[in-house]
Protein backbone atom coordinates (compact mmCIF):
# COMPACT_ATOMS: atom_id res chain seq x y z
CA UNK A 1 0.00 0.00 0.00
CA UNK A 2 1.35 3.42 -0.95
CA UNK A 3 2.17 5.61 1.99
CA UNK A 4 0.16 8.85 1.96
CA UNK A 5 1.47 10.46 5.15
CA UNK A 6 4.79 10.86 6.87
CA UNK A 7 5.43 11.88 10.48
CA UNK A 8 8.05 13.85 12.29
CA UNK A 9 8.62 15.34 15.73
CA UNK A 10 9.30 19.07 15.87
CA UNK A 11 8.51 21.76 18.40
CA UNK A 12 6.37 24.64 17.18
CA UNK A 13 8.36 27.79 18.04
CA UNK A 14 5.62 30.13 16.81
CA UNK A 15 5.84 32.63 13.96
CA UNK A 16 7.65 31.18 10.97
CA UNK A 17 7.30 27.57 12.03
CA UNK A 18 4.66 27.04 9.35
CA UNK A 19 4.51 29.91 6.86
CA UNK A 20 1.36 30.77 4.93
CA UNK A 21 2.88 29.70 1.61
CA UNK A 22 3.93 26.34 3.08
CA UNK A 23 0.45 25.75 4.49
CA UNK A 24 -1.10 26.68 1.13
CA UNK A 25 0.97 24.00 -0.64
CA UNK A 26 0.63 21.03 1.71
CA UNK A 27 -1.58 19.92 4.58
CA UNK A 28 -0.22 19.95 8.13
CA UNK A 29 -1.71 18.26 11.15
CA UNK A 30 -0.27 18.83 14.61
CA UNK A 31 -0.72 15.93 17.01
CA UNK A 32 0.02 15.43 20.72
CA UNK A 33 3.69 15.04 21.59
CA UNK A 34 4.87 17.57 18.99
CA UNK A 35 4.14 14.99 16.29
CA UNK A 36 3.40 16.47 12.86
CA UNK A 37 1.72 14.70 9.94
CA UNK A 38 2.55 15.94 6.43
CA UNK A 39 2.24 14.34 2.98
CA UNK A 40 4.68 11.59 2.06
CA UNK A 41 6.74 11.64 -1.13
CA UNK A 42 6.35 15.40 -1.30
CA UNK A 43 9.21 17.83 -1.93
CA UNK A 44 7.57 20.71 -0.06
CA UNK A 45 6.90 18.50 2.96
CA UNK A 46 10.47 17.26 2.97
CA UNK A 47 11.80 20.82 2.75
CA UNK A 48 9.61 21.87 5.69
CA UNK A 49 10.81 18.95 7.85
CA UNK A 50 14.35 19.98 7.06
CA UNK A 51 13.61 23.63 7.89
CA UNK A 52 12.17 22.85 11.32
CA UNK A 53 14.88 20.26 12.05
CA UNK A 54 12.16 17.62 12.43
CA UNK A 55 13.00 14.09 13.46
CA UNK A 56 11.29 11.72 11.04
CA UNK A 57 9.32 8.90 12.66
CA UNK A 58 7.62 5.86 11.21
CA UNK A 59 3.88 5.72 11.67
CA UNK A 60 4.30 3.14 14.45
CA UNK A 61 6.91 5.25 16.24
CA UNK A 62 4.71 8.31 15.99
CA UNK A 63 1.72 6.31 17.23
CA UNK A 64 3.64 5.34 20.38
CA UNK A 65 4.37 9.02 21.10
CA UNK A 66 0.79 10.10 20.48
CA UNK A 67 -0.63 7.22 22.54
CA UNK A 68 1.59 8.10 25.50
CA UNK A 69 0.43 11.71 25.42
CA UNK A 70 -3.25 10.82 25.04
CA UNK A 71 -3.11 8.16 27.77
CA UNK A 72 -1.47 10.61 30.17
CA UNK A 73 -4.07 13.19 29.23
CA UNK A 74 -6.89 10.71 29.85
CA UNK A 75 -5.39 9.80 33.22
CA UNK A 76 -5.20 13.47 34.16
CA UNK A 77 -8.82 13.97 33.10
CA UNK A 78 -9.98 10.93 35.08
CA UNK A 79 -8.47 12.48 38.20
CA UNK A 80 -10.51 15.68 37.84
CA UNK A 81 -13.43 16.43 40.12
CA UNK A 82 -16.91 15.74 38.77
CA UNK A 83 -17.41 19.48 38.56
CA UNK A 84 -14.34 19.91 36.36
CA UNK A 85 -15.32 16.91 34.24
CA UNK A 86 -18.72 18.48 33.61
CA UNK A 87 -17.16 21.39 31.75
CA UNK A 88 -14.59 19.44 29.78
CA UNK A 89 -14.37 16.25 27.73
CA UNK A 90 -12.24 13.17 28.12
CA UNK A 91 -9.45 13.11 25.53
CA UNK A 92 -10.09 10.54 22.84
CA UNK A 93 -7.68 8.06 21.29
CA UNK A 94 -6.05 9.06 18.01
CA UNK A 95 -5.22 6.47 15.37
CA UNK A 96 -2.60 7.48 12.84
CA UNK A 97 -2.92 6.52 9.19
CA UNK A 98 -0.30 5.42 6.69
Amino acid at each position, binding site marked *: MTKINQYCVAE*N*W*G*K*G*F*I*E*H*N*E*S*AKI*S*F*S*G*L*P*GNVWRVPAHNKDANLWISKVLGTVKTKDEAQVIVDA*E*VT*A*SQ*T*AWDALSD*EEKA*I*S*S*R*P*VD*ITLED
Partner: protein
Amino acid sequence: MSIYRGINGFAVQNYSSNPTLIDGQVWYNSTSKNLQLTKFVTAAWSTSGNLPQAGLTQVAGTGTQTSMLSFNGQAQPPNQTTTNSQSYDGSTWTAQAQMNTSRQQSTGSGISNTSVLAFSGRLQPAAKSAATESYNGSWTTQPNMGRAEYNLGGAGTGSAAVAFGAYSGGTVYPTESYNGSWTAGNPMSVGRNRNKGFGSSATSALTMGGENGSGTNNNTESWNGTNWTSVGVMNNARYAGAASSGSAATDGLIAGGRGGPPALILTSETWNGSSWTNGPSLLEQSALGAGAGASGSSAAICGGTTNSPGNDSNKTQNFNSGAQVVAITST
Protein backbone atom coordinates in the same frame (compact mmCIF):
# COMPACT_ATOMS: atom_id res chain seq x y z
CA MET B 1 14.39 51.03 -13.45
CA SER B 2 10.67 50.64 -14.12
CA ILE B 3 8.36 53.45 -13.06
CA TYR B 4 4.89 52.59 -11.66
CA ARG B 5 3.28 55.28 -13.85
CA GLY B 6 4.99 53.75 -16.87
CA ILE B 7 3.58 50.29 -16.10
CA ASN B 8 0.07 51.26 -15.00
CA GLY B 9 -0.44 54.64 -16.64
CA PHE B 10 -1.02 56.48 -13.35
CA ALA B 11 0.96 57.46 -10.29
CA VAL B 12 0.84 55.79 -6.90
CA GLN B 13 -2.25 57.17 -5.17
CA ASN B 14 -2.26 58.63 -1.68
CA TYR B 15 -5.06 57.38 0.62
CA SER B 16 -5.74 58.06 4.29
CA SER B 17 -7.36 54.60 4.55
CA ASN B 18 -7.03 51.53 2.40
CA PRO B 19 -9.05 51.60 -0.87
CA THR B 20 -11.18 48.78 -2.28
CA LEU B 21 -8.66 46.04 -2.88
CA ILE B 22 -7.61 45.24 -6.44
CA ASP B 23 -5.01 42.55 -7.09
CA GLY B 24 -1.59 44.09 -7.67
CA GLN B 25 -2.63 47.66 -6.83
CA VAL B 26 -0.01 49.79 -5.06
CA TRP B 27 -0.85 52.85 -2.93
CA TYR B 28 0.53 55.00 -0.12
CA ASN B 29 -1.38 54.97 3.17
CA SER B 30 -0.81 58.41 4.67
CA THR B 31 -2.17 57.29 8.07
CA SER B 32 0.09 54.27 8.55
CA LYS B 33 2.81 55.92 6.44
CA ASN B 34 3.31 52.68 4.50
CA LEU B 35 3.58 51.94 0.83
CA GLN B 36 1.11 49.06 0.42
CA LEU B 37 -0.10 46.62 -2.18
CA THR B 38 -2.90 44.11 -2.62
CA LYS B 39 -1.92 40.48 -2.86
CA PHE B 40 -4.30 37.56 -3.36
CA VAL B 41 -3.38 34.50 -1.31
CA THR B 42 -4.70 30.95 -1.13
CA ALA B 43 -6.71 30.20 2.01
CA ALA B 44 -4.35 28.76 4.62
CA TRP B 45 -3.43 28.81 8.31
CA SER B 46 0.05 29.69 9.51
CA THR B 47 1.73 29.68 12.89
CA SER B 48 2.35 32.97 14.63
CA GLY B 49 3.80 34.36 17.85
CA ASN B 50 3.21 32.39 21.03
CA LEU B 51 1.18 33.72 23.94
CA PRO B 52 3.18 34.96 26.95
CA GLN B 53 1.74 32.15 29.11
CA ALA B 54 3.02 28.57 29.04
CA GLY B 55 -0.53 27.46 28.27
CA LEU B 56 -3.90 29.15 28.25
CA THR B 57 -7.36 27.71 27.73
CA GLN B 58 -10.96 28.75 28.31
CA VAL B 59 -9.70 32.16 27.26
CA ALA B 60 -11.72 34.99 25.71
CA GLY B 61 -10.72 37.24 22.86
CA THR B 62 -12.00 39.79 20.42
CA GLY B 63 -10.90 42.23 17.73
CA THR B 64 -9.16 41.47 14.47
CA GLN B 65 -6.10 39.51 13.38
CA THR B 66 -3.94 42.63 13.55
CA SER B 67 -5.64 44.19 16.58
CA MET B 68 -6.73 41.47 19.00
CA LEU B 69 -7.10 41.39 22.76
CA SER B 70 -7.27 38.10 24.65
CA PHE B 71 -8.06 37.98 28.34
CA ASN B 72 -9.01 35.86 31.35
CA GLY B 73 -8.83 32.09 31.00
CA GLN B 74 -7.15 29.25 32.83
CA ALA B 75 -3.43 29.83 32.79
CA GLN B 76 -0.81 27.15 33.15
CA PRO B 77 0.86 26.81 35.51
CA PRO B 78 -0.78 26.82 38.00
CA ASN B 79 -4.13 25.98 36.34
CA GLN B 80 -5.91 28.89 37.94
CA THR B 81 -8.21 31.53 36.57
CA THR B 82 -6.35 34.65 35.55
CA THR B 83 -6.73 38.43 35.31
CA ASN B 84 -4.18 38.64 32.49
CA SER B 85 -4.90 40.43 29.25
CA GLN B 86 -2.62 40.67 26.22
CA SER B 87 -2.77 42.40 22.86
CA TYR B 88 -1.80 40.96 19.49
CA ASP B 89 -0.72 42.84 16.36
CA GLY B 90 -0.80 39.96 13.90
CA SER B 91 2.53 38.51 14.91
CA THR B 92 3.45 39.39 18.51
CA TRP B 93 1.69 39.36 21.90
CA THR B 94 2.23 42.11 24.46
CA ALA B 95 1.04 41.93 28.07
CA GLN B 96 -1.56 44.55 29.00
CA ALA B 97 -3.23 45.73 32.19
CA GLN B 98 -4.58 43.31 34.78
CA MET B 99 -8.34 42.87 34.89
CA ASN B 100 -10.48 43.37 37.98
CA THR B 101 -12.18 39.95 37.95
CA SER B 102 -10.26 36.69 37.74
CA ARG B 103 -12.27 34.16 35.74
CA GLN B 104 -12.29 31.76 32.82
CA GLN B 105 -14.80 31.16 30.02
CA SER B 106 -15.64 34.84 29.92
CA THR B 107 -16.77 36.51 26.70
CA GLY B 108 -15.81 39.72 24.96
CA SER B 109 -16.92 42.19 22.33
CA GLY B 110 -14.88 44.69 20.37
CA ILE B 111 -13.51 45.33 16.90
CA SER B 112 -10.01 46.33 17.97
CA ASN B 113 -7.66 45.77 20.89
CA THR B 114 -8.12 49.31 22.18
CA SER B 115 -11.83 49.18 23.05
CA VAL B 116 -13.17 45.94 24.50
CA LEU B 117 -15.95 44.80 26.80
CA ALA B 118 -15.49 41.63 28.91
CA PHE B 119 -18.43 39.96 30.59
CA SER B 120 -19.66 36.77 32.30
CA GLY B 121 -17.36 33.85 33.13
CA ARG B 122 -16.61 31.11 35.61
CA LEU B 123 -15.01 32.00 38.91
CA GLN B 124 -12.75 29.88 41.07
CA PRO B 125 -14.05 28.24 43.28
CA ALA B 126 -16.73 27.41 40.76
CA ALA B 127 -19.45 30.02 40.43
CA LYS B 128 -21.01 31.88 37.56
CA SER B 129 -20.08 35.52 37.11
CA ALA B 130 -22.16 38.49 35.93
CA ALA B 131 -19.17 40.85 36.15
CA THR B 132 -18.58 43.28 33.30
CA GLU B 133 -15.55 45.44 32.65
CA SER B 134 -14.41 47.65 29.81
CA TYR B 135 -10.90 48.12 28.43
CA ASN B 136 -9.33 51.18 26.83
CA GLY B 137 -5.76 50.65 27.99
CA SER B 138 -6.91 49.85 31.51
CA TRP B 139 -9.85 47.86 32.83
CA THR B 140 -12.84 49.57 34.46
CA THR B 141 -15.68 47.79 36.23
CA GLN B 142 -19.07 48.28 34.58
CA PRO B 143 -22.61 47.31 35.67
CA ASN B 144 -23.21 43.57 36.09
CA MET B 145 -25.19 41.51 33.63
CA GLY B 146 -28.75 40.64 34.56
CA ARG B 147 -27.84 37.00 34.93
CA ALA B 148 -24.55 35.32 35.82
CA GLU B 149 -23.35 32.79 33.25
CA TYR B 150 -20.25 31.46 31.50
CA ASN B 151 -19.35 30.29 28.01
CA LEU B 152 -21.69 32.75 26.32
CA GLY B 153 -21.48 33.95 22.74
CA GLY B 154 -20.81 37.63 22.23
CA ALA B 155 -20.71 40.33 19.56
CA GLY B 156 -20.55 44.09 19.18
CA THR B 157 -18.09 46.79 20.16
CA GLY B 158 -16.39 47.86 23.34
CA SER B 159 -19.34 50.09 24.23
CA ALA B 160 -22.35 48.31 22.70
CA ALA B 161 -22.53 44.54 23.01
CA VAL B 162 -24.88 41.59 22.86
CA ALA B 163 -24.48 38.35 24.90
CA PHE B 164 -26.28 35.15 24.00
CA GLY B 165 -26.51 31.48 24.91
CA ALA B 166 -27.16 29.52 28.10
CA TYR B 167 -29.64 26.69 28.23
CA SER B 168 -30.66 24.51 31.12
CA GLY B 169 -33.52 22.13 31.83
CA GLY B 170 -35.55 23.20 28.83
CA THR B 171 -35.12 26.91 29.50
CA VAL B 172 -33.44 29.11 26.91
CA TYR B 173 -32.23 32.16 28.80
CA PRO B 174 -32.67 35.72 27.50
CA THR B 175 -30.24 37.49 25.23
CA GLU B 176 -28.74 40.52 26.95
CA SER B 177 -27.74 43.80 25.29
CA TYR B 178 -25.31 46.37 26.71
CA ASN B 179 -25.07 50.10 26.08
CA GLY B 180 -23.77 51.20 29.46
CA SER B 181 -26.03 48.79 31.30
CA TRP B 182 -27.52 45.41 30.43
CA THR B 183 -31.08 44.83 29.17
CA ALA B 184 -32.70 41.41 28.72
CA GLY B 185 -34.20 40.59 25.34
CA ASN B 186 -35.57 37.66 23.38
CA PRO B 187 -33.78 34.31 23.66
CA MET B 188 -32.35 32.34 20.76
CA SER B 189 -34.63 29.87 18.99
CA VAL B 190 -32.39 26.91 19.75
CA GLY B 191 -31.31 26.33 23.35
CA ARG B 192 -27.58 25.67 23.70
CA ASN B 193 -24.41 26.29 25.61
CA ARG B 194 -20.88 26.94 24.45
CA ASN B 195 -22.12 28.48 21.19
CA LYS B 196 -19.97 31.10 19.51
CA GLY B 197 -20.72 34.31 17.65
CA PHE B 198 -19.48 37.26 15.69
CA GLY B 199 -20.85 40.62 14.65
CA SER B 200 -19.45 44.13 14.74
CA SER B 201 -22.52 45.74 16.30
CA ALA B 202 -24.97 44.97 19.09
CA THR B 203 -27.84 44.89 16.60
CA SER B 204 -26.32 42.60 14.00
CA ALA B 205 -24.79 39.33 15.14
CA LEU B 206 -24.55 35.67 14.22
CA THR B 207 -24.35 32.70 16.54
CA MET B 208 -23.38 29.17 15.58
CA GLY B 209 -22.98 25.71 17.05
CA GLY B 210 -23.11 24.76 20.72
CA GLU B 211 -24.36 21.82 22.73
CA ASN B 212 -27.33 21.22 24.99
CA GLY B 213 -26.33 18.16 26.96
CA SER B 214 -27.98 15.73 24.56
CA GLY B 215 -26.08 16.63 21.43
CA THR B 216 -23.90 19.01 19.49
CA ASN B 217 -25.62 21.28 17.02
CA ASN B 218 -24.74 23.03 13.78
CA ASN B 219 -27.56 25.59 13.79
CA THR B 220 -26.89 29.21 12.88
CA GLU B 221 -29.06 32.11 13.98
CA SER B 222 -29.00 35.79 13.05
CA TRP B 223 -29.74 38.63 15.54
CA ASN B 224 -31.27 41.91 14.36
CA GLY B 225 -31.29 43.69 17.71
CA THR B 226 -34.68 42.29 18.68
CA ASN B 227 -35.10 38.70 17.48
CA TRP B 228 -33.11 35.66 16.46
CA THR B 229 -33.83 33.94 13.12
CA SER B 230 -32.46 30.57 11.99
CA VAL B 231 -30.44 31.18 8.83
CA GLY B 232 -28.68 27.92 8.04
CA VAL B 233 -26.46 25.18 9.35
CA MET B 234 -22.73 24.69 9.55
CA ASN B 235 -21.18 21.74 7.73
CA ASN B 236 -19.73 20.52 11.04
CA ALA B 237 -21.62 20.49 14.32
CA ARG B 238 -19.30 21.86 16.98
CA TYR B 239 -19.06 23.65 20.28
CA ALA B 240 -16.30 25.62 21.99
CA GLY B 241 -14.69 26.67 18.71
CA ALA B 242 -13.10 30.05 18.09
CA ALA B 243 -14.81 32.65 15.90
CA SER B 244 -13.75 35.84 14.11
CA SER B 245 -15.39 37.87 16.85
CA GLY B 246 -14.66 41.30 15.38
CA SER B 247 -16.15 40.60 11.95
CA ALA B 248 -19.49 41.66 10.52
CA ALA B 249 -22.36 39.21 10.97
CA THR B 250 -22.35 38.61 7.22
CA ASP B 251 -18.68 37.69 6.79
CA GLY B 252 -16.93 35.55 9.38
CA LEU B 253 -15.19 32.35 10.33
CA ILE B 254 -15.24 29.63 12.99
CA ALA B 255 -12.56 27.01 13.58
CA GLY B 256 -11.70 24.20 15.94
CA GLY B 257 -13.69 23.19 18.98
CA ARG B 258 -15.26 19.84 19.71
CA GLY B 259 -17.43 17.80 17.38
CA GLY B 260 -20.38 15.44 17.76
CA PRO B 261 -18.53 12.94 19.85
CA PRO B 262 -16.47 15.24 22.06
CA ALA B 263 -13.34 14.79 19.97
CA LEU B 264 -11.34 17.87 19.11
CA ILE B 265 -11.93 18.89 15.53
CA LEU B 266 -9.64 20.89 13.27
CA THR B 267 -11.99 22.07 10.55
CA SER B 268 -12.70 25.71 9.77
CA GLU B 269 -15.70 27.19 8.00
CA THR B 270 -16.42 30.62 6.56
CA TRP B 271 -19.81 32.36 6.47
CA ASN B 272 -20.73 34.69 3.59
CA GLY B 273 -24.06 35.92 4.90
CA SER B 274 -26.09 33.01 3.60
CA SER B 275 -24.12 29.76 3.80
CA TRP B 276 -21.06 28.08 5.33
CA THR B 277 -18.12 26.84 3.24
CA ASN B 278 -15.48 24.44 4.52
CA GLY B 279 -11.99 25.91 4.67
CA PRO B 280 -8.58 24.51 5.49
CA SER B 281 -8.12 22.75 8.81
CA LEU B 282 -6.31 24.28 11.75
CA LEU B 283 -2.66 23.29 12.02
CA GLU B 284 -3.07 22.23 15.65
CA GLN B 285 -5.88 21.32 18.01
CA SER B 286 -7.68 24.08 19.86
CA ALA B 287 -10.92 24.01 21.80
CA LEU B 288 -11.95 26.80 24.16
CA GLY B 289 -9.37 29.06 22.55
CA ALA B 290 -9.92 32.72 21.68
CA GLY B 291 -10.72 34.02 18.22
CA ALA B 292 -10.62 37.35 16.44
CA GLY B 293 -10.97 38.52 12.88
CA ALA B 294 -12.14 41.34 10.66
CA SER B 295 -13.77 38.95 8.18
CA GLY B 296 -13.93 35.37 7.00
CA SER B 297 -10.67 35.95 5.13
CA SER B 298 -8.55 37.31 7.97
CA ALA B 299 -8.62 35.82 11.46
CA ALA B 300 -6.50 34.53 14.32
CA ILE B 301 -7.04 32.05 17.12
CA CYS B 302 -4.93 31.45 20.18
CA GLY B 303 -4.66 29.14 23.15
CA GLY B 304 -7.13 26.39 23.86
CA THR B 305 -7.34 22.83 25.08
CA THR B 306 -5.39 20.11 23.31
CA ASN B 307 -5.09 16.38 23.74
CA SER B 308 -1.82 16.70 25.61
CA PRO B 309 -1.82 16.42 29.40
CA GLY B 310 -1.19 19.63 31.27
CA ASN B 311 -0.28 21.16 27.99
CA ASP B 312 -2.93 23.66 27.06
CA SER B 313 -1.87 25.57 24.01
CA ASN B 314 0.03 28.85 23.98
CA LYS B 315 0.03 28.82 20.19
CA THR B 316 -1.44 31.34 17.77
CA GLN B 317 -2.65 30.50 14.30
CA ASN B 318 -3.39 33.10 11.61
CA PHE B 319 -5.84 32.54 8.77
CA ASN B 320 -5.66 34.48 5.53
CA SER B 321 -7.34 34.13 2.17
CA GLY B 322 -8.17 36.28 -0.84
CA ALA B 323 -7.18 39.93 -1.07
CA GLN B 324 -4.67 40.91 1.61
CA VAL B 325 -2.97 44.22 2.27
CA VAL B 326 0.79 43.92 2.36
CA ALA B 327 3.08 46.72 3.53
CA ILE B 328 6.12 47.18 1.29
CA THR B 329 9.25 47.58 3.36
CA SER B 330 12.91 47.86 2.53
CA THR B 331 13.83 44.70 4.46
